[in-house]
């Protein structure tokens, strides 16, 4: 009979979406199946993760999205997420009845992308239709909104040339599917222009969008964004304090962060200040997936963080701008831990950057979508982890197939990640991570934020050691992620990196 499912919103609703649901609990599986069918989706259910993988591999192009429980007996949901991301590049929605922040973080780390904020409203609609209680719709809605705000802000900041795509993926050495960035992948666009000091440190703020705290972050973010870099100095104080409240992260780098960074958003007009790395602001971003623009590099380059989660073609937006290496950061040259590490100079399609990224050491595991991972390998002083990151970088940044759309978005002068791109993503695949309580755990560990209390430049250089990421950033991210920066802890090597 005419399906009572024919949705009145067929025009904008992805009816017929091929969904694969994985959950070990048969009761939930049945409920989910019914819910999804009501959304006019084409549903396949699986009680075991390995069966799911089998199905996915068997029909590479057979599904559009995967929805999975986080705790299953045969395989951890996050592992499944990783596999899916790596092999199939599909968006994955993680579900959890407990919504603990640590779980959320973990999800992000593994590549879940919290994409609530699509302008397409697709996900939200889905949620609405699904009426899934544990997905905290309120969170979704709020994220969506924040995200949008963010994105629009970012778009305004177009002067950033390079956009960094940061993918969070701390665990993945290999490609971290873009999904990794949970919530936000901030791509930091850093202008390369005189980057002399751009030390950007973008701390991974990738914003873990986890609904939770985003509020505070949001403010920050906004603040950040709006502050165009003006002084690397504390200008962003705003963000910083905010983040501070968010997270108590261990790193006292926060302080430094705050101090130096302020720049987060903004452009480090001072050559030395790379504030951009301050992205700490990203914390706020956490909720916002938008991109932050930083112009951290001393030069006028605004750095932009774009949160891109793009998994699919876009692969984490992290596009580090290799150009940045130039900035000479007074401090030690470290790799930029920030997720953002890679700023793409001129961003424009940077596929090359991505490829080239490998050189950028992404230090931390992207545990959070936040940049952490990125290390700028450019810096001469090799930051440790560079190796590991390079791999990682590859994964995200490198998107070998960098999708032009993506790049354009990133670079578009702006914030690497456009909303429109998001749309693409959306279409492409997104990994969503929903947690009922989503609150970000403290990201601190993971965020290896390369912020350095940079004296001259906004960036805090070298102060960070693992998981130093300014708490602020982590706040946002709150991920339970492990420290992305393992060894190298120097978060952003000041520009030295780029040099």
């Amino acid at each position: 009979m005419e399906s009572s499912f024919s949705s009145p919103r067929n025009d904008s609703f992805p009816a017929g979406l091929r969904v694969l649901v994985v959950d070990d609990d048969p009761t939930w599986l049945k409920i989910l199946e019914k819910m999804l069918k009501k959304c006019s989706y084409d549903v396949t259910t699986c009680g075991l993760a390995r069966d799911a993988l089998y199905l996915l591999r068997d029909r590479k192009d057979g599904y559009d999205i995967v929805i999975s429980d986080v705790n299953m007996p045969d395989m951890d949901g996050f592992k499944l997420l990783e596999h899916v991301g790596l092999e199939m590049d599909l968006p994955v929605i993680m579900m959890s009845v407990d919504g603990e922040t640590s779980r959320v973080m973990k999800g992000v780390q593994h590549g879940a992308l919290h994409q609530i904020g699509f302008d397409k409203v697709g996900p939200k609609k889905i949620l609405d239709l699904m009426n899934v209680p544990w997905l905290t719709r309120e969170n979704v809605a709020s994220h969506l909104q924040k995200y949008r705000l963010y994105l629009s802000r970012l778009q305004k900041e177009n002067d950033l040339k390079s956009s960094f795509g940061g993918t969070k993926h701390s665990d993945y050495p290999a490609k971290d599917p873009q999904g990794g960035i949970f919530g936000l992948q901030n791509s930091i666009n850093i202008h390369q222009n005189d980057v002399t000091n751009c030390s950007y440190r973008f701390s991974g703020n990738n914003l873990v969008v986890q609904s939770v705290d985003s509020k505070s972050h949001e403010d920050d973010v906004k603040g950040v964004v709006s502050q165009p870099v003006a002084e690397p100095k504390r200008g962003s104080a705003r963000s910083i304090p905010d983040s501070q409240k968010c997270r108590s992260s261990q790193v006292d780098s926060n302080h430094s962060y705050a101090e130096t960074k302020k720049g987060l958003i903004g452009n480090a007009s001072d050559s030395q200040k790379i504030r951009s790395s301050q992205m700490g602001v990203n914390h706020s971003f956490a909720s916002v997936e938008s991109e932050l623009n930083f112009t951290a590099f001393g030069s006028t380059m605004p750095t932009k963080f774009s949160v891109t989660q793009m998994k699919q073609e876009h692969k984490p937006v992290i596009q580090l701008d290799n150009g940045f290496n130039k900035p000479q950061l007074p401090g030690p040259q470290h790799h930029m831990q920030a997720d953002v590490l890679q700023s793409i100079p001129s961003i424009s399609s940077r596929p090359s950057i991505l490829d080239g990224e490998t050189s950028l050491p992404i230090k931390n595991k992207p545990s959070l979508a936040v940049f952490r991972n990125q290390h700028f390998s450019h810096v001469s002083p090799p930051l440790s982890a560079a190796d590991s990151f390079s791999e990682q970088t590859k994964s995200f940044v490198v998107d070998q197939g960098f999708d032009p759309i993506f790049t354009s978005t990133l670079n578009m002068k702006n914030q690497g990640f456009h909303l429109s791109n998001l749309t693409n993503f959306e279409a492409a695949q997104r990994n969503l991570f929903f947690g009922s309580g989503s609150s970000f755990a403290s990201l601190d560990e993971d965020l290896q934020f390369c912020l350095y209390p940079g004296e001259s430049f906004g960036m805090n250089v070298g102060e960070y050691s693992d998981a130093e990421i300014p708490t602020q950033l982590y706040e946002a991210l709150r991920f339970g992620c492990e420290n992305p920066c393992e060894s190298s802890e120097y978060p952003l090597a000041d520009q030295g990196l780029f040099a």
Partner: protein
Amino acid sequence: MERTHMRRQVGLMRQSLFTQGFLDEQFIQLEELQDDANPNFVEEIATLYYCDSSKSLQTIEQALEKTPHDFNKLDNHMHQFKGSSSSIGAKKVKDECQQFREYCKAGNREGCMRTFQLLKKEHATLKKKLEAYFQMARQAGPLETASRPK
């Protein structure tokens, strides 16, 4: 009419399940999912839940009999069970699950044992109530579902 009377009875029964705290909002969500394609959806879900949860309870019971208690494991089992119980909106059962988990975290063996007994009791009580409810609902004929409890 008998039918009307029956329907009213069913409605009251349903209402009391909510007001007495046996069920929560999730149950209403399930009712909303019920439609012509699956006219007995809620009952099917409840049946599935009971089948599955009985096994889980047995597992937990066995784990409780071992000494010393492996609290971690017990907590994990309970986490799972709690999630499952939340699927049908079994409120009281869930509350006991939570209590159990807390005792686990505190390493309180006695507390765990006691709570487990309460949990089983709630589980059984709800089962009976639901069975009676579904049976009467079937006899009364289709009801409007998804009506929120006042």
